[in-house]
């Protein structure tokens, strides 16, 4: 595989060439744009590193030329330069895929890290796009950083791929590791607390970075900095875990020698506090896929620990957009919120926010350089904050997938507080996590369009036709339909009848949808061999309990096994798990609850479940529904069990379709559904009506 380094000269070019060569690339050098374009046409490199400054020429201009040159889709162009010289936005604009900030004379380790990050980003992108692995694997096999991929869908989350560097790091051969769990690298000196942190993060599908003691094949230990990220498919299911492993033994050894015991203890305490703060922050940033909620969590959790005011801004085409703001003091928060949400950035680099977003470099502002908070700092001292002008500030870029998407600002109103480099490091770490969460939320927002398509997969395409039975179903997702998951229903044909299931998975979003799919398919499978409805629900309970650690969601179900009686009418066997009981609509117009309450599924190992048998005479109906029906908010308050019964009683004797429509109307009279609404009505046909209908 060919790579091209375009740099005017100096130590950096030598270092880049050496590192790429070490990773197995055949490296061609070029010093000018003309040489570079010739080399690209000749060698067809898959990776082109372009220096921001090429003597008198501009690296950005070269990126643009490369973007227009033949074969652009087959190569990755990366802009390399000193941090101060790089604008990520400009680079992306010019067609570069990534930016590596490398000051001259930086250690080779930093270079490797930049390259490892680059591959991790590429890989995630690749998986997200459902791309072909072969090419990527070739590339990964040549990097100097250890990569491992596991498949959590297989038993015990085994390693399904490891690259050459991993084998070199550990001394293992492919046959030793493929198919085995990563815990094979652990040993007596591995701290169980580190392992527990990994496990806890994996259980919640969250990325985690842990440094732990690992063992090589020959029994020697090394300090392994492991970063594990879950990779989701488009349904939100974790299909791979990607683990990047860096041997930091040498680094740790140096650190240990330099640090005196006392400074080590002080650092441990401070970093303990910081870790606690970050540990607290991460789950909350990841808790929601909603952009607004994510930002609110971020700002709320930052005050007052990192400052009295926390603000999230993005800059878009010369305008600052305030996305969220919070303050420790309510009056200050009101003032901050009253500032304009959009205003033009000042020209040049006077506006610190715009400056940080442009340069991608975090800044600490002190008393001499008071931070502006709103439009035209000149129009009102302290950027428009009437009380308590900011005394100090930290502004940190929000960077996700190589792009700067905004900035996070912390302001201190207390005169005695001045931010230190350690505060800044913590702010940057928080920003890194926040940017990821934000990016996920953004991505999710875009995906809301496909939500309804996904939801369609949660209900059957069409109802079966069974002689002697009328079947009708209604399904209405909550709100505008952009949130997926929650309710489902299914009709499963069996010998001599069919099963009807109506269920509700708690929560919303892609994970709820995934669990809904799991519940529906488990039930479908179990329906074939379980003799009683309670048996089907018990099987579903087992499957859901097994998933609980990763999902934390539960499922309520009403299940009816229906058989057409030879003498007319229907026999039903009903089992219910934590769900509203089905209602029989009797010939005399009464609504009657059928079944006996049982446990919600997915919570405990030994649910209490019952079967109740009942007979429906011809013309009598059974209604299964979710709490979106009974708890629908109507202009007269919640619909409630009594009014629900009254609505049904008024529909006695009607065909199944008419009963379903009447119930749906009652549930939706308050406007958009507050919760999903799902219902199924089945009714034994009256003698002669089949012939009449035919």
């Amino acid at each position, binding site marked *: 595989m060919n790579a091209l380094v375009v740099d005017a000269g100096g130590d950096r070019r030598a270092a880049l060439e050496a590192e790429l060569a070490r990773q197995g690339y055949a490296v061609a050098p070029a010093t000018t744009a003309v040489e570079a374009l010739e080399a690209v046409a000749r060698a067809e490199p898959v990776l082109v590193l372009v220096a921001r400054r090429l003597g008198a020429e501009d690296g950005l201009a070269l990126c643009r030329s490369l973007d227009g040159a033949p074969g652009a889709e087959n190569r990755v162009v990366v802009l390399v330069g000193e941090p101060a010289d790089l604008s990520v936005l400009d680079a992306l604009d010019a067609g570069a895929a990534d930016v590596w900030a490398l000051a001259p004379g930086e250690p080779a380790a930093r270079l490797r890290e930049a390259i490892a990050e680059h591959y991790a980003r590429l890989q995630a992108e690749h998986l997200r796009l459902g791309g072909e692995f072969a090419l990527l694997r070739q590339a990964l096999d040549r990097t100097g950083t250890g990569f491992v991929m596991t498949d959590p869908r297989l038993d015990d989350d085994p390693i399904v791929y490891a690259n050459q560097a991993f084998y070199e790091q550990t001394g293992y051969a492919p046959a030793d590791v493929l198919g085995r769990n990563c815990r094979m690298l652990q040993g007596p000196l591995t701290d169980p607390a580190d392992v527990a942190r990994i496990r806890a993060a994996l259980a919640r599908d969250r990325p985690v970075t842990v440094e732990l003691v690992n063992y090589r094949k020959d029994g020697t230990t090394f300090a392994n900095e492991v970063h594990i990220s879950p990779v989701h498919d488009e349904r939100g299911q974790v299909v791979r875990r990607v683990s990047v492993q860096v041997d930091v033994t040498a680094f740790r050894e140096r650190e240990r020698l330099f640090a005196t015991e006392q400074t080590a203890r002080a650092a441990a305490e401070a970093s303990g506090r910081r870790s606690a703060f970050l540990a*607290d922050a991460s*789950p*909350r940033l990841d*808790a*929601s896929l909603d952009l607004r*909620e994510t930002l609110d*969590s971020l700002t709320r959790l930052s005050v007052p620990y990192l400052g009295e005011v926390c603000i999230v801004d993005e800059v878009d085409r010369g305008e600052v957009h305030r996305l969220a703001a919070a303050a420790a003091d309510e009056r200050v928060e009101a003032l901050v919120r009253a500032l304009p949400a959009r205003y033009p950035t000042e020209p040049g680099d006077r506006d610190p926010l715009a400056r940080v977003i442009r340069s991608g470099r975090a800044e600490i502002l002190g008393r001499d350089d008071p931070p502006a908070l709103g439009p035209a700092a000149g129009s009102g001292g302290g950027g428009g904050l009437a009380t308590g002008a900011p005394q100090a500030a930290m502004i940190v870029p929000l960077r996700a997938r190589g792009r700067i998407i905004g900035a996070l600002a912390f302001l201190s109103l207390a005169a005695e507080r001045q931010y230190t480099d350690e505060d800044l490091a913590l702010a940057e770490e928080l920003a890194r996590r926040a940017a990821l969460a934000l990016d996920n939320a953004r991505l999710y927002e875009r995906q809301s369009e496909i939500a309804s398509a996904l939801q369609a997969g949660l209900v059957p395409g069409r109802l079966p036709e069974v002689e002697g039975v009328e079947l009708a179903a209604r399904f209405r997702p*909550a709100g505008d339909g952009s*949130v997926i998951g*929650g309710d489902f229903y299914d009709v499963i044909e069996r010998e001599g009848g069919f099963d009807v299931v109506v269920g*509700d998975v*708690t*929560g*919303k979003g892609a994970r709820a949808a995934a669990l809904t799919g799991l519940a529906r398919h488990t039930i479908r499978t179990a329906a074939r061999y379980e003799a009683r409805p309670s048996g089907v629900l018990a099987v579903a309970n087992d499957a859901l309990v097994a998933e*609980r650690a990763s999902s*934390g*969601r*539960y499922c*309520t179900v009403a299940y009816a096994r229906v058989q057409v009686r030879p003498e007319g009418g229907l026999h039903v066997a009903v089992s219910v*798990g*934590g*769900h*509203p009981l089905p209602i029989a609509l009797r010939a005399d117009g009464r609504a009657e609850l059928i079944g006996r*309450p*049982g*446990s*919600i599924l997915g*919570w*405990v190992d030994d649910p*209490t479940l019952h079967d109740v048998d009942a007979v429906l005479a011809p013309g009598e109906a059974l209604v299964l529904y979710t*709490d979106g029906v009974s*708890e629908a908010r109507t202009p007269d308050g*919640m619909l409630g069990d009594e009014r629900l019964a009254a609505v049904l009683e008024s529909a006695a004797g009607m065909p199944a379709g008419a009963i379903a429509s009447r119930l749906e109307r009652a549930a939706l009279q308050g406007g958009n559904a*507050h*919760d999903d609404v799902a219902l199924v009505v089945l009714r034994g046909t009256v003698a002669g009506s089949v012939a009449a209908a035919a």
Partner: protein
Amino acid sequence: MTAFTVERNPNGDAMRVVVSGELDMATGPRLEEELRRAQAGGHREVVLDLTGVTFFDSTGLQVVLDAEVRAREGGQELLIVVAADGEPLRVLRLAEVTDRLRISETGG
């Protein structure tokens, strides 16, 4: 619509989380967050007071059950306080979980 509020009141070795208003898809995450904090605080017992909750559906159910799982795994006590004639108790009964939760009923 009643405004939704969550308060955390430490009381000796117990932490009391008092909720009022409508607990639904929009407000559930806030309670979840407060509960996680309360449960991470190292208290022997967390009391979740739902007597002021006027709307309670599967979102609230999930928050309560998750809190119970965390308490169970963390060796912590969780007590749920509900109004005898309130929505939360009705839904918890419907889900058939009351016999496995520590529940205290008030009023009636």
